[in-house]
């Protein structure tokens, strides 16, 4: 059937064109820059422009465009489109000369634009050149100047005046206002994403005061439900979800604080400039806003390739490419959402259509060169944050240890504390004696080499599996426990302590014999760290298929203590043999280790001191060297500081852009911003000059490269970009945001392409209105709520959405004016647009109507699926097994857990995005899958049942129940014929079936 549709389109546009030729007054003036040039830029000038002139023809210069070309005849005959070869070529009238030869062909509408332009004389902005200084003149980057407001008539606001001006110019007029019921339902869903309940309907319908509507708007804007609705738009834009995406689609346990930040920011109407700065650089703006660190979740909201960025080897090309790709996502997120330009198109070459150079692109990469995506800790309480920071800085100083710090550590105060500690701790300390074996062997050939500190380092060819055997004697009378230290070493992958490529190891069994075959059972095993599912108990459970592991805490030393039930008496010549069985395979072998034994009383204290510190403590205080005293003082100070740090309230975590975070395998905090090179053709193997942090050169009012000192923290780069973005003279950001807000109210922006203000995007339908809104927004508090208010209070917003009117006989008739014909697409807003409810509104409305909606806000997301460990990183998720009666089922949809590669099929069928792509406006599809989901999904069915139960608990007969159901679903009273039909159905099949039906109607799904 679509063929018929297309035929219709062609027919329609031809009719339009011929109507124009018959009636020259009605012919709209085609403007070159707005109407014609975009067609040339998109379809022609790549081959017929300033860079290439295929067939010696170019369209960027008027004289050459008219006269040029391979043949002798002119290509454009002004005023005669039918005779112009250009038109014949693009419309395929000449065999073998269809232009463009590749890519999308010109649509018939585009061809008509070219025809009209030629028929009107093929004029350009300048008699000779089409594109004089075009870049600076492009509408979106032109400086933002407040246009004069048109005359505002009585009862209008400024928006209405702008809209009316354009409508009148083409002979149209606005539609009558929508009915109060329609307006009420419209404004509820629009502002808070929920339907009004019958009481709210009643009170609005009976409030006849002139300010009733205004009061309603203000009440909804003040409702916390407002932030829940509008934050979701921003989550779409930020492509937020709570798993990584890709093959290892791991859950981000701490992504949700960013969602809560957004809800809070919208509810508190955070001025937009501040909102932008917080999301880019909350950590770099003045003290006292640490509670806003969660805003940095914006930069990390998109997908992340865990395999490439954490798990494969650091030294691979794939890792390096992965980092560029990852930063690309961050900068695309920032520039698309804040400037509405397609900066990411300049990665491999200068932007083909917009004035964005590759150098600009890599300057933006450099802004994010110092961050990764990771869990970032922060405190809501600034005083605790300061305390924590101070302690952290002091721990850092212990690593660098300058002379004044050493002096302080060796000063009387510190030393006294140290002596006190030494005395008080002597009793509780386990006295470990280094076990010095006489023979050390590895049965599968690992080479074990003795190290000066009593440890052994494994090297040589790495077998799949191995068992290390140590035999010797100990000069003790009894043994109560054995300690196995796993030590880091530069020679090991990720510094070990394991030999596996990821630095891990698996100790399958730890066995010990005394005096030959006397096997002794370990009664308790303790360790400083266990890999998830690989606890140290597994090394003494007698099963070789289970083992102890330490991943992901590689690059750190670890230890285990194996304790016996009773002291085992030994003599000085009792042979002791220890076996470290490592049978998991894949080279999960211990890289460096040391064994000690003790005869201390049981139970052994699990807190143990490193051997070097024990050795110092064993030395008499007076005989300690200065180095030993410093070593001890540093150790003591480090312990003291970390105890103090541990005692602070646990910090909150947010998955965000972070320069400092807990290492996770080979994902470690960068030591500073990484050098970023411009990559020729985007190829990692062709690095060119170093990029300087910066932004876009095309905004001539602002410096395009940032003065960031090389000693500054990386956050200074992000702060500089934030400052550039929110500058008063950056015209992009203000135009971008007012257009987005407008789009969400009307279903379409003043600029159709909210994420592309470049030459491939659309042009504003009302450029003066856009600039008026942008300057007004910028200069009077940057309040989004204020902007909502002026839009919602306009007559334009309050118009009816109908294209038809009901005549006296009660039948629908097309409006008796030119609107449908002249502007059937409603670009000029002669009526309101009808919208389909989005996935969240549908789900929330069902919860609300059935009386199930739980208004609890914030906190970890509701997982509306059954979750089982998967075969690898990604868990197994089953939405079908979720308990719809659990408390996790009842909160608003904004609190649903968002799984990237395993989205909820019900929400997906309703066009809820998966968080992979930046979404400025939801798709609005009508599909079979959607019909099946709404008709059969267990959520809809359960809500239908609960709703029916709720109705039946109320007084009255089925007629009253059905009436109430219609009021709740549609916010209007029923009409007699439908009421009869519904009652009949409900009486025959039960009210739940009728409820299911109502939730599937067009009237429920659409908002007029």
């Amino acid at each position, binding site marked *: 059937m679509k063929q018929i549709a297309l035929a219709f389109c062609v027919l329609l546009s031809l009719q339009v064109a011929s109507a124009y030729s018959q009636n020259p007054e009605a012919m709209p003036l085609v403007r070159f820059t707005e109407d014609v040039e975009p067609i040339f830029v998109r379809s022609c000038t790549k081959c017929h422009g300033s860079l290439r002139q295929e067939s010696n023809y170019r369209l960027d210069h008027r004289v050459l465009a008219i006269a040029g070309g391979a043949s002798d005849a002119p290509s454009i005959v002004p005023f005669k489109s039918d005779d112009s070869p250009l038109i014949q070529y693009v419309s395929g009238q000449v065999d073998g000369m269809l232009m463009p030869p590749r890519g999308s062909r010109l649509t018939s509408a585009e061809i008509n634009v070219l025809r009209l332009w030629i028929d009107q004389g093929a004029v350009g902005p300048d008699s000779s050149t089409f594109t004089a200084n075009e870049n600076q003149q492009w509408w979106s980057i032109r400086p933002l100047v407040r246009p004069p407001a048109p005359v505002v008539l009585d009862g209008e606001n400024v928006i209405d005046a702008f809209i009316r001006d354009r409508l009148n110019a083409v002979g149209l007029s606005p539609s009558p206002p929508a009915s109060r019921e329609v307006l009420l339902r419209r404004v509820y869903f629009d502002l808070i994403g929920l339907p009004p309940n019958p009481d709210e309907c009643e009170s609005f319908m009976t409030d006849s005061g002139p300010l009733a509507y205004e009061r309603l708007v203000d009440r909804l804007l003040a409702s916390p439900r407002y932030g829940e609705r509008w934050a979701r738009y921003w989550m779409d834009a930020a492509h937020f979800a709570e798993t990584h995406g*890709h093959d290892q689609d791991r859950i981000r346990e701490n992504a949700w604080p960013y969602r809560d930040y957004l809800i809070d920011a919208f509810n508190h109407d955070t001025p937009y400039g501040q909102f932008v700065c917080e999301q880019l650089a909350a950590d770099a703006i003045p003290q006292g806003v640490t509670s806003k660190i969660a805003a940095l979740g914006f930069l990390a909201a998109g997908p992340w390739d865990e*395999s490439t960025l954490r798990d494969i*080897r650091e030294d691979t090309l794939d890792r390096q490419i*992965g980092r560029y790709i990852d930063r690309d996502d961050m900068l695309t997120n920032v520039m698309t959402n804040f400037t509405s330009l397609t900066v990411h198109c300049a990665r491999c070459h200068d932007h083909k259509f917009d004035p964005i150079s590759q150098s600009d692109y890599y300057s933006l990469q450099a802004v994010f060169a110092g961050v990764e995506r990771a869990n970032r800790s922060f405190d809501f309480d600034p005083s605790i944050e300061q305390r924590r920071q101070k302690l952290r800085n002091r721990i850092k100083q212990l690593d660098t240890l300058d002379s004044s710090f050493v002096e302080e550590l060796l000063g009387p105060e510190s030393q006294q504390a140290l002596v006190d500690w030494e005395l008080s701790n002597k009793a509780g300390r386990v006295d470990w004696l280094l076990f010095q074996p006489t023979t050390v062997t590895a049965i599968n050939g690992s080479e074990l080499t003795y190290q000066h500190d009593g440890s052994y380092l494994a090297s040589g060819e790495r077998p799949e599996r191995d068992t290390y055997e140590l035999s010797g004697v100990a000069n003790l009378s009894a043994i109560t426990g054995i300690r196995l230290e796993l030590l880091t070493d530069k020679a090991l992958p990720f510094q070990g302590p394991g030999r596996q490529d990821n630095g891990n190891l698996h100790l399958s069994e730890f066995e010990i014999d005394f005096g030959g075959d006397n096997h002794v059972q370990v009664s308790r095993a303790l360790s400083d760290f266990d890999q998830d599912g690989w606890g140290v108990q597994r090394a003494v459970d007698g099963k070789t298929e289970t083992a102890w592991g330490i991943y992901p805490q590689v690059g750190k030393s670890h230890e285990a203590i194996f304790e016996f039930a009773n002291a085992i008496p030994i003599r000085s010549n009792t042979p002791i043999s220890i076996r470290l069985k490592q049978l998991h395979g894949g080279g999960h072998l211990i890289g460096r280790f040391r064994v000690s034994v003790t005869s201390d009383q049981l139970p052994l204290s699990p807190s143990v001191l490193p051997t070097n510190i024990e050795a110092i403590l064993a030395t008499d205080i007076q005989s300690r060297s200065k180095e030993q005293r410093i070593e001890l003082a540093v150790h003591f100070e480090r312990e003291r500081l970390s105890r103090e740090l541990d005692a602070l309230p646990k910090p909150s975590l947010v998955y965000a852009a972070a320069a400092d975070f807990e290492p996770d395998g080979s994902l470690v905090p960068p030591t500073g911003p990484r050098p970023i090179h411009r990559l020729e053709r985007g190829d990692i193997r062709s690095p060119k000059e170093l990029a300087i942090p910066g932004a876009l050169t095309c905004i001539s009012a602002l410096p395009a490269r940032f003065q960031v000192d090389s000693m500054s923290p990386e956050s200074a780069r992000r702060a500089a970009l934030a400052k550039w973005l929110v500058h008063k003279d950056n015209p992009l950001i203000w135009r971008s945001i007012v257009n987005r807000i407008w789009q969400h109210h009307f279903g379409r922006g003043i600029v159709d392409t909210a994420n592309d203000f470049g030459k491939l995007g659309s042009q504003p339908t009302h450029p003066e209105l856009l600039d008026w809104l942008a300057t007004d927004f910028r200069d009077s508090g940057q309040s989004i709520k204020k902007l909502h208010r002026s839009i919602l209070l306009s007559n334009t917003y309050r118009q009816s959405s109908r294209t038809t009117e009901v005549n006296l006989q009660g039948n629908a008739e097309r409006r008796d004016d030119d609107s449908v014909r002249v502007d059937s697409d409603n670009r000029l807003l002669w009526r309101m647009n009808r919208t389909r409810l989005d996935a969240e509104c549908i789900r929330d409305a069902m919860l609300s109507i059935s009386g199930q909606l739980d208004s609890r806000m914030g906190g970890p997301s509701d997982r509306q699926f059954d979750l089982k460990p998967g075969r690898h990183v990604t868990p197994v998720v089953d939405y079908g097994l979720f308990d719809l009666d659990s408390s996790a089922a009842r909160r608003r949809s904004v609190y649903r857990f968002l799984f990237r590669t395993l989205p909820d099929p019900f929400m997906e069928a309703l066009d809820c995005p998966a968080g992979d792509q930046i979404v400025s406006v939801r798709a609005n599809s009508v599909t079979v899958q959607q019909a099946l989901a709404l008709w059969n999904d267990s959520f809809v069915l359960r809500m239908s049942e609960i709703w029916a139960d709720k109705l039946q608990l109320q007084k009255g007969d089925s007629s009253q129940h059905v009436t109430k159901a219609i009021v709740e679903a549609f916010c209007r009273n029923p009409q007699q014929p439908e009421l009869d039909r519904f009652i009949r159905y409900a009486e025959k099949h039960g009210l739940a079936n009728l409820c299911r039906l109502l939730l599937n109607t067009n009237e429920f799904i659409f908002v007029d």
Partner: protein
Amino acid sequence: MISRRSLLQNCGYGLGGIALFQLLGDEGTFGASNLSRGMGGLHHAAKANRVIQLFMNGGASQMDLLDYKPMLQDRHGQKFEPSTESRIEAATSVPGNILGSPFSFAKHGDCGRWVSSLMPNLAKHVDDIAVLLSMTSRTNVHGPASYLMNTGFQLPGFPCLGAWVSYGLGNINENLPAFIVLPDGRGLPYNQRGNFSSGFLPVTHQGTMIQANLAEPLHGLRAPSSARFITPESERDGLLLLAETNRASLAHHDFDPRMESRIRAYELAAKLQLSAPEVFDLSQESAATHTAYGLDNPTTEDFGRRCLLARRMIERGVRMVQVWSGANGPTGNWDNHSSIINELPPMTAATDKPTAALLSDLKARGLFDDTLLLWNTEFGRMPFSQGSEGRDHNGSAGIGWMAGAGVRPGVAVGETDEWSWKAVKEPVTNYDFHATVLQLLGIDHERLVYQHNGADRRLTDVHGHVIHSLLS
């Protein structure tokens, strides 16, 4: 400026009679030509009209299957020292010594194709298939490589081959989805459903996933039994009343094509409910067919059943079916890091016989006249060992094959170096492969375009050349 999209909106709006254009599979469909339902193609005459793709998840080991390299056996255990300047690196491990294939190879068919002992059944069909011996990937990591081989981009969020085909050509049978995915019974592949996403294309083009082993194999096909208030009568009367109600409000309120489309969507949903069970009813197939696809053997049963289902779906007018072998995870797929000799044979044992049966069946039923059969994996593996007997990922070499409508049988394209380390002759990218598949379907890969966030997006990004030597 009038965009094509707004033009369509213009036309669609207010003209009740053409609302069907927005419908269902056709809503947001690119194809403008009636011919796509027949054999005309979108941009030129099509050779193929439907596709079955078998996808081996994890990176099938090319030198143990089709890319025979005697040098590896000769130098087994020696240090890997190729005479090039290229750095030897592996994604997840330290490169080990040369690992010769532990399997024997022999020449088969009139074309004399080398096939390893792991694929005795495919070996009988080498004269029917065109082999790609020089597949390459831009990455050595599963996630991005699987995305690349399915969507042409290394990142999530782009439409996959099946979605583009559905968008470009629409569906053949409106009672069934245009694009169906049959994942391995053990679980979803790497990237899970990301590999069958419609990305920024309308959601109707995404792969409809059918998991026969789940309580709900197809979401929403019917009401769950927990909804006890639903009876066959309430269902029948309810759908009628819903249509009546929606029509009444349409007539009363407005001429909005979306509203009419919703009415039609419920009608088609009801048809899908009726036609789906017949597709799954394998009892209609003969015992000989069951045996041929290996349904009588637990080793081949899962993959065999899905191959047979794929054939039934294609016969009933599904445009594309993707059948996966292997789930994500460390084992039970083609990602054989630990031991080629132990981990690869179970994968070929599960798939070789059903694959050959599908080839024979499609041929015998004449379906190869308009059906394309593809066999793919995301990348190849390394000629040197990981640990003692496994192989790490290798984006620089890999294999694939295709057969059926428009494909020149018995040929091979490309060569790797003597190690099967890097493709050296006629390297084939995912872009080239996809361009070729689209070419066969009558689509010019440079003209199947969708504008999204300011960029004209294609399955082949800005790359891709049709591999003409593969075409008959």
